[in-house]
């Protein structure tokens, strides 16, 4: 506002401290990570510059391939379930007058819990001796499907992914619900008068008008998956091997367990770049289809 512009010192007082903290601890740190990613370093002696060797090594490492695949399969399944369930349940709640607030409050509950708490909960739920999952399978006669959910390398990835998807469906329901409430009643009413049923309204009006909000959800799910840590770390330590590890967990082990800070920084850069690229890619796709 021009009237306050004359106070040139205002930028120093109001933005100065934040600018210094943010620049030093966030922005400079990213460049430090980039530099470390080009070195071999144990965080004690001096970093040795090795160029892109860490990157070459990472992409030829079978463990990294598994972790990368976990991350992308996890992302695909999260997008599939969280967006579709988010849309369906948001629409169901949106069309419901009685219990609207109660349903919204209940489905959002897991979102406020810490990821560590949810991971602990599911460690107990999936426990093969005392958890209800195996017991339910036995009760409905599917005994052969019972597993050691937390250690069987065929299923452990899905075991860890389950709470990751479960915990945040409610978040996307509430976000999409808020979007639906902003659609004007008139549009939906006139469509109904023209004879459109709930399904038609859902697919032809609600979804097209929600594309920008769906895009926000996609970005949140994507960045969430690339920094995923707690569920996998707490439930299985990413194991057996790296069977249930995600990039965030893999990076943590490289740095803080194996003291390979250079290689860990390489993984961190992969996380950063992948998150940024996928975010921008989805933005392009959504822009093409929205009107």
């Amino acid at each position, binding site marked *: *506002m021009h009237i*306050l*512009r004359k*106070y040139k010192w*205002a*930028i120093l*007082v*109001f*933005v100065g*401290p*934040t600018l210094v903290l*943010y620049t030093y*601890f*966030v922005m400079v740190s*990213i460049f*430090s*990570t980039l530099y*470390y990613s080009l070195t071999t370093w144990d*965080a004690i002696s001096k970093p040795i510059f090795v160029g892109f060797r860490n990157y070459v090594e990472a992409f030829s490492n079978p463990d990294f391939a598994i972790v990368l695949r976990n991350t992308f399969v996890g992302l695909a399944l999260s997008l599939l379930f969280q967006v579709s369930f988010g849309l369906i*349940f948001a629409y*169901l*709640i949106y069309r*419901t007058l009685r219990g609207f607030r109660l349903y919204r*409050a209940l*489905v*959002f*509950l897991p979102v*406020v819990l*810490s990821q*560590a*708490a949810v991971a*602990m*909960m599911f460690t107990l*739920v999936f426990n093969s001796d*005392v*958890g*209800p999952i195996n*017991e339910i399978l036995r009760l409905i006669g599917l005994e052969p499907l019972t597993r050691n959910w937390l250690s069987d390398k065929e299923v452990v990835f899905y075991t860890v992914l389950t709470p990751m998807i479960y915990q945040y*469906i*409610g*978040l996307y329901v*509430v*976000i999409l619900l*808020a979007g639906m409430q902003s659609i004007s009643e008139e549009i939906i009413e006139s469509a109904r008068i023209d004879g459109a049923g*709930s399904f038609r309204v859902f697919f032809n009006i609600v979804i097209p008008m929600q594309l920008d909000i769906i895009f*926000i*959800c996609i970005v*949140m799910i994507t*960045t969430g998956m690339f920094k995923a840590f*707690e569920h996998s770390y*707490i439930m299985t330590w990413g194991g057996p091997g790296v069977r249930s590890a995600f*990039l*965030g967990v893999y*990076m*943590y082990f490289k*740095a803080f367990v194996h003291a390979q*800070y250079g290689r*860990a920084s390489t993984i*961190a850069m992969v996380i*950063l770049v992948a998150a940024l690229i996928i975010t921008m890619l989805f933005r392009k796709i959504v822009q093409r289809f929205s009107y």
Partner: protein
Amino acid sequence: MRHTTPDLLQDRSSIVKQRIGVFFRQLTLAIWCFTTLYPVVWVVLNAFRDNKQIYGNPFAFPNPAIFRNFPKAFSGVHLLTTLTNSIIYGVVTVIVTMLLAAMAAFYLSKIARGSSLYVYFIIGIMIPIQAILIPLFINMRNMHLLNTRLGIIIVYVVINLSMSIFILTGFMKNGIPNDLIEAAVIDGCGPLEVFFRIVLPMSQAGIATAGTLVFLGVWNEFLFALTMLAAPGLRTLNLSVYMLRGPYSTDQGLMAAGVVILITPVILMYIVFQEQVVKGLTAGAIKG
């Protein structure tokens, strides 16, 4: 249906259809809410069962209800210390972050609108914390701030700045009329007076939203606590409950009680400040 007009009688089948629709909607939502809450309820029930009961029927109610898991968990997580730590980190982080972010947001929304600094600050929202984890850790180590309250609070402040500035700038842009500020300036107020006398008091709702988000974020934070707080006396509640899950621990009741201790304060907060909490946690995605 006694007073239906002939006109509406024709639509009887569609009314029946609508009723069936309502029934199935309610049923689906009820089943889904049950599924969502079941793991939480099941763990809470387990906290009141001893190992003998836990290894029996997993669906049974605690019979009799056992309470000894809780004293064990209280001492296991050093409740007094870790709860105090979590509250200190949360409250101090919220105060510092809100002050810094509100000042920056005031500048970006009222003094230099459209400043490219805004974009610079907002980029931080897209950056995964792993991208800065190692340099932050090294920095803190070199400054001798590892294993200190100050160190972890600095980290929590800087990782929450971007989102708080984003929320507060948006809030101030629309929530505080420019006329009011202009009038104050004409009356002789400088930027500092305008900020502390007008902007800050009028931003309460925005600060409550951002503050809730930041507090819950700190309360639930795990990765930095895990890497930066090795000293038992400095750990957060979140971290120490995780530590109940020792590699060889088979005390399921103890773990369940730990989870209950950890989630009770957040659930209470959610029940009391529901609108505020929902608003805070969805603030990045929903405008207004």
